[in-house]
């Protein structure tokens, strides 16, 4: 539509960070009333570009036009004024604030901070079926709800251009469908949506137009009708689109992890309130991948942390290859052969302000080759970090770079590399490929399969049901801290799982 100026036009956008070129000569047009997807491998520069469009970071070069008018955005306030709204890759919510406070913050002018605002929030929530209670504390909300709060924040400000940076990474299919439903409504109302995701089939299903970014620059803009996800992937990385299909089962009869009625009391203390974990029992054999499906916040995190020994007060028995873990500290358990890919890499996986090589040592302080007589051999550690950076294709200037400077995906690759390098007999992988691009995904899945073949037992927790189905030998569904059903991946669809996870469907 040449007569109508595009909602957003980016020309020659460039952005450098020390040692990194995040964006370089990026050109994108986003038409009105469309959903425009942006794909690209980790570190390609997607988030950076969006932050520029949202006024968080200033571009080093290039121009931004919104609705035909050239603008200079020196702060998000400017962007909001021009009708741009953004949902960030990492939630931007104050946990200790109520939903209301989080939503009205910065937009108090619109409806104040009181009853009027509450009414407006309820109205929007109902209009889009977001189901949000204004007075809940955000920290009490599950991820899905937080996601919706983020979207509500944008709508509350009456944005015309809505940016969503990897919004589906943490959602179950039903939630994704709801989200896409919402997006289509927005589109129908003439809003433009910019949508970033690593899940290419999603992208193909919802986008009207797709721009591919590689190494910080736009390589192509394609029509979803005209491409397959395979072609997309090749545009992004030049690699194959991976399919996490399990090959012949390698399950042995050696029990690696034995968990018997593991329970964890709730905040109110033993006996009171709903337990976080309720009499959970299962075995994982050597060479077996056990997938745990569940809507976020149903006890997956607690289960993992209980097995890792990070949760005081857990009762029940946990045995690893015959060794009784109950009395062991987290470190002893790791030494006993547990590898751990945590759900929240920033909180549990990394020292963001430490160089990569220190992050390599983290969790393996007592291991060879660097640990000798209570000392840490920096050279050995650096060397082994170099190896991981090479083997796992971590994009970084060097092993002395701070972990903080890496993009989410690359941080994840480092963690996976680290945990695989400790010769674990049990790998606990929570969302191992969350926010990781297809190339990296394939690599990570490959590593997990290899290890599995070599007799590794894996406890896999993922919100990506395809991943779960593709990798697992068996899937357990967890709901409100209890195991509510066991599924055979070879005969289950994501939808079935989804309904079991939400308590709708029965177990098989």
């Amino acid at each position, binding site marked *: 539509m040449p007569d109508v100026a595009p909602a957003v036009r980016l020309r020659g956008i460039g952005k*450098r*960070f*020390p*040692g*990194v*070129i995040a964006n*370089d000569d990026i050109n994108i047009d986003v038409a009105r009333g469309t959903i425009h997807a942006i794909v690209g491998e980790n570190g390609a520069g997607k988030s950076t570009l969006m932050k520029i469009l949202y006024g968080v970071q200033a571009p*080093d070069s290039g121009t931004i036009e919104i609705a035909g008018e050239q603008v200079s955005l020196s702060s998000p306030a400017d962007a909001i004024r021009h009708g741009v709204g953004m949902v960030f890759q990492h939630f931007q919510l104050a946990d200790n604030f109520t939903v209301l406070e989080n939503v009205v913050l910065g937009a108090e002018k619109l409806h104040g901070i009181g009853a009027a605002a509450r009414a407006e929030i309820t109205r929007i929530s109902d209009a889009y079926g977001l189901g949000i209670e204004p007075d809940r504390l955000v920290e009490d909300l599950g991820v899905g709800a937080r996601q919706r709060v983020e979207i509500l924040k944008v709508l509350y400000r009456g944005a015309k251009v809505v940016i969503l940076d990897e919004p589906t990474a943490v959602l179950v299919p039903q939630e994704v469908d709801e989200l896409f439903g919402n997006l289509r409504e927005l589109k129908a109302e003439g809003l433009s949506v910019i949508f970033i995701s690593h899940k290419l089939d999603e992208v193909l299903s919802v986008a009207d137009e797709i721009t591919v970014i590689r190494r910080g620059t736009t390589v192509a803009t394609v029509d979803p009708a005209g491409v397959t996800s395979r072609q997309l992937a090749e545009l992004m990385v030049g690699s194959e689109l991976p399919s996490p299909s399990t090959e012949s089962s390698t399950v042995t009869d050696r029990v690696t992890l034995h968990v018997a009625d593991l329970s964890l009391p709730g905040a109110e203390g033993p006996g009171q309130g709903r337990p976080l974990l309720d009499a959970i029992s299962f075995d994982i054999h050597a060479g077996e991948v056990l997938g745990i499906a569940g809507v976020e916040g149903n006890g997956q995190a607690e289960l993992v942390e209980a097995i*890792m020994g*990070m949760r005081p007060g857990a009762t029940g028995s946990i045995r690893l290859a015959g060794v009784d873990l109950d009395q062991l*500290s*987290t*470190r*002893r*358990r*790791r*030494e006993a052969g547990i590898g*751990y890919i*945590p759900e929240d890499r920033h*909180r*549990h*996986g*990394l*020292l*963001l*302000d*430490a160089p990569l090589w*220190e992050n390599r*040592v*983290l*969790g393996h*302080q*007592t291991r060879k080759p660097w*640990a000798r007589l*209570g*000392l*840490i051999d*920096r050279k050995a550690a650096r060397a082994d970090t170099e190896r991981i950076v090479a083997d796992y294709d971590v994009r970084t200037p060097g092993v002395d770079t701070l972990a903080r400077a890496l993009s989410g995906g690359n941080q994840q690759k480092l963690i996976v590399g680290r945990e695989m390098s400790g010769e674990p007999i049990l790998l606990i992988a929570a969302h191992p490929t969350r926010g990781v691009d297809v190339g990296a995904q394939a690599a990570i899945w490959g590593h997990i399969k290899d290890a599995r073949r070599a007799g590794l037992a894996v406890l896999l927790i993922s919100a990506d049901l395809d991943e779960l189905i593709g990798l697992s030998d068996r899937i357990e569904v967890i709901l409100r801290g209890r195991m509510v059903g066991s599924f055979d991946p070879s005969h289950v669809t994501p939808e079935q799982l989804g309904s079991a996870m939400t308590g709708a469907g029965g177990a098989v």
Partner: protein
Amino acid sequence: MKDPRLVKLGLGLAAPVLALLLAFLITSLVLVVAGDPVGEVWSTILGVPEERNIANILNNATVLYLSGLAVAVGFRMNLFNIGVDGQYRVAAFVAAVVAGEAWLPGAANTVLAILAAMLAGAAWAGIAGVLRARRGVSEVISTIMLNFIATGLVAYFLRRVAVREEGSNDIGTKEIPEGSRIPGFSIGDGPTEVYGFIFLAALAGFVYWFVLNRTRFGFDLRATGRSTTAAVASGISVTKMTVVAMLISGAVAGLVGLPLLFGDSYSYGSTFQSGLGFAGIAIALLGRNHPIGIAIGALLFAYLDEQSNPLQILVGVSPDIVAITQGVIVLTVVISYEVVRRYGVRLEQHAVARALEADRQEARA
């Protein structure tokens, strides 16, 4: 194109120099506004110290250095030990009593007293550590409270054990016998000797550096300081680390008063130097928790203190002026590091840009 390592070095040096200049500038400004003789003040402060002054500077620096180390241990784990002040007073008192009683002969007595001091300091800090680890009490508050409590307790027990020299209004513990004192050495023929303890302080500095940067324990400690959650996930027991870190910090704090005790006063009394813990905080920060940085900071502060002492007599200006200088330095150092850092970042970005351009050229060619 100039060598990047040279640039880095240049920037590294630029920061502290910039900071000192700034601090002097601001101080001079104050002097001018107040109508005090700027020139004379600086010529007095920056004048070449005599041998005995050098000795004094080294001595005070020794004490400040230990105090700085004690604080730094905590900082490395994000523990803010404001309590060094109380800890070193408790420890010095205990050491004075032990050494004064002289249950063991000569050097053995000294060693015993030093150990006692470290134990006492550790125990006093340990209270805060346990409260933080077990009850989540902010060590900031608990150590502040413990400082005041230490004052009361030490005063009480001092009065119990105090011996009072005939005609003196000062009370103190029994004098440490000759044999158990730590001999100093004199520079040139100055009247004041440098504390022998200075070597122990340097050793402490080295151990600090080695333990923190080369041992697994040090790694765990710094990791906990950077992210408690990640530390826990990596198998570090944060509660244990908290207590241990406070114990160590306290043990080092226990050493702070000892140079004075074994090299100068030989007893703990009502005129024993106080407030060293707070100076230590500034110095640890000034030295960015690095043993060598702390040493430099301690020397700088000691130098300014010593050189400003005669100001009132010779120039008629209150020595308090250097307190302003010292405080300003603490600020300007950090600020100028920040400024220089930002400048460095800009340089790096330009470098990246040039590299990129170069690639493009090749691509075309």
